[in-house]
């Protein structure tokens, strides 16, 4: 308790530190927003809650890290992870997701949880349990006498995340495939009647989501670090974001992603890094409890 109060007094004594935390939160939040967008996409279109989302991110991160280890620029990791995860997503779709789309929701949840365990344990066997980070070799800029530090890598990650998110949003709005995806999300049966191959739409959506996660993972490896078992925390974060925002509401998903980033930076600073995971999980419970209160007023269950 004492520890927390002294941290608060540090923040009030040096307000410029707040600014630093805010910037870091926004930069990292952009990556959360990107991956949460993918989760909301799959959730909304095919009604599958993908618990392996965080592990897709880790997979993308390890691809980037491996590229860096072989002397290639880790920045190359973004497109490579995007492409690799696209194919990986297709394999997972053919083997698992296709068979559980029409079943009840717990089935898909548990099946993707199984996929998550396979991915994290395989990563653990392949790369070991240490945290790894890819170095882009870009400089850090310091402001306000060293109190505020903005790393060029984080800024680059931010810009890439925003560009990617914009590209996906424009694609969904304007392209023919994007229209088909949105039609399927609205009413799969009507879409089939109108000649849309929903099977193809599902496959495409899942691959797109996996690829987005891969790119997000590449950015995570660049600006932060990756570890085989961090995936679960990412999955929980993304669920918090999407649950708090509501699946149909994409601007809210992106805003909640930024909010999550800022919340985590401040929470981690105030409570200490060892509480980070507990903080995210408690936020999940808080959001679920809040949703429940909201639904109680209209006498419905959160489902």
């Amino acid at each position, binding site marked *: 308790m004492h520890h927390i109060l002294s941290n608060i007094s540090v923040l009030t004594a040096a307000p410029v530190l707040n600014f630093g935390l805010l910037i870091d939160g926004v930069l990292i939040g952009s990556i959360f927003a990107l991956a949460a967008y993918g989760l909301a996409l799959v959730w909304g279109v095919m009604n599958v809650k993908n618990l392996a989302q965080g592990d897709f991110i880790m997979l993308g991160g390890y691809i980037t890290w491996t590229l860096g280890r072989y002397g290639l620029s880790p920045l190359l990791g973004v497109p490579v992870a995007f492409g690799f995860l696209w194919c990986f997503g297709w394999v997972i779709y053919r083997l698992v997701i296709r068979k559980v789309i029409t079943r009840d929701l717990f089935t898909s949840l548990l099946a993707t949880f199984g996929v998550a365990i396979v991915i994290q344990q395989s990563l653990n066997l392949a790369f070991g349990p240490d945290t790894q980070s890819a170095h882009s070799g870009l400089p850090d800029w310091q402001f306000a006498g060293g109190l505020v530090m903005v790393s060029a890598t984080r800024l680059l990650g931010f810009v890439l995340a925003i560009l990617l998110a914009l590209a996906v949003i424009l694609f969904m709005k304007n392209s023919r495939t994007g229209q088909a995806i949105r039609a399927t999300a609205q009413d799969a049966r009507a879409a089939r009647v109108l000649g849309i191959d929903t099977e193809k739409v599902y496959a495409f959506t899942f691959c797109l989501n996996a690829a987005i996660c891969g790119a997000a993972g590449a950015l995570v490896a660049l600006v932060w670090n990756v570890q085989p078992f961090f995936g679960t925390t990412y999955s*929980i974060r993304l669920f918090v974001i999407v649950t708090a925002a509501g699946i149909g509401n994409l601007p809210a998903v992106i805003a909640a992603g930024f909010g999550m980033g800022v919340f985590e930076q401040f929470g981690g600073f105030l409570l200490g890094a060892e509480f980070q995971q*507990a903080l995210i999980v408690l936020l999940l419970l808080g959001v679920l409890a809040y949703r429940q209160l909201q639904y109680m007023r209209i006498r419905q269950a959160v489902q």
Partner: protein
Amino acid sequence: MNFASRQALPYWLILVAGTIAPFVFHQYSNEIAVLWLMIVFASTWDILGGQMGYNSLGNIVFFGAGMYICAVVQIGLFYDVGMYTAGSRTTHIVFTNAQYFSGFALGLVAAGIGAAILAIAAGWIVFGLRGPYFAIGTLGLAVASAELTASWDWVGAASGISMPVFPYAPETQKLFFYFLLFALGFSLLLFLRWLYSTSFGLALNAIRDDEEKAEAMGLHTRRYKRTAWAISAFFLGIAGAVFGNMTGFIEPRDIAFPTTTFNLFMVVMVLLGGKGTLWGPVIGAVIFHTFKEVTWTYFLGWQFVALGLLIVVTIVYFQQGVAGWLIEKYPAWFAPRDALKRPEATPALAPQPEGAE
């Protein structure tokens, strides 16, 4: 139940087999004791998951809570818990026989009741959630309890607690804990058999089949859900208390609240054996545990990859489980007994027309 009837035969067989097993398979008595623990896991998970249709991913909370409550009672009766956990690295603290057994007995009771109270309290938070939200919310509870316990210094934080040492020889210890777990598992089976035959059991099934309709018929569904969870928490809490003393050392992440091992085993065993039946979870636990014990060492580090694959394959390709498959394949075997409960095949199993959602 009529103890002389043919229906009672399986229970007599289990009672006899369970009693002689640790003497016949002497060197495997620990593994068989864990098998009973697995049966408790699967059967308590099935109360919610199978009978009531609420798939929890957080039942491990009560196992760990029982473990810690029992430890705190056992130590707290005679010493200061904070000092004990802080000093256990350097000093060896001895409990007398009377201290050990009185503390343990009291701890078992406290663990069961404490876990049940915890379930009722947690039920206020999670039972307004349905389907996947319930699963994710309970998973959150499990992860949160592991993380919070791991940062709570009074109970030893992440480095855990060394439990009081059993005062007799290791051989006696093995048998003592075996028979505790056996008694727990066996009484749970008898209790569930009775429970599922009462109107309470029917109410659980009604909630599973259509919760809105059940509520409209006047069932106070939330009360039933909380009670059902408290029942499974009671048995899980006692199981945790016994298991904590059996291993002699408890810590939050891998022993008390292992989200990806015991917590998932529960679900996998029930799905493997067959949801919503009395014997399905037992069959699943036996198959899973035997398979795991026999093959685990041959996987050379790939065990958990294999576990993930097993989950995926079970859930995607073999969801009705062994018991469900048997009922589908040989309905005649189950007809006389089930005829009273289920007059006809459940409509859910009827073939869907082509193109239906």
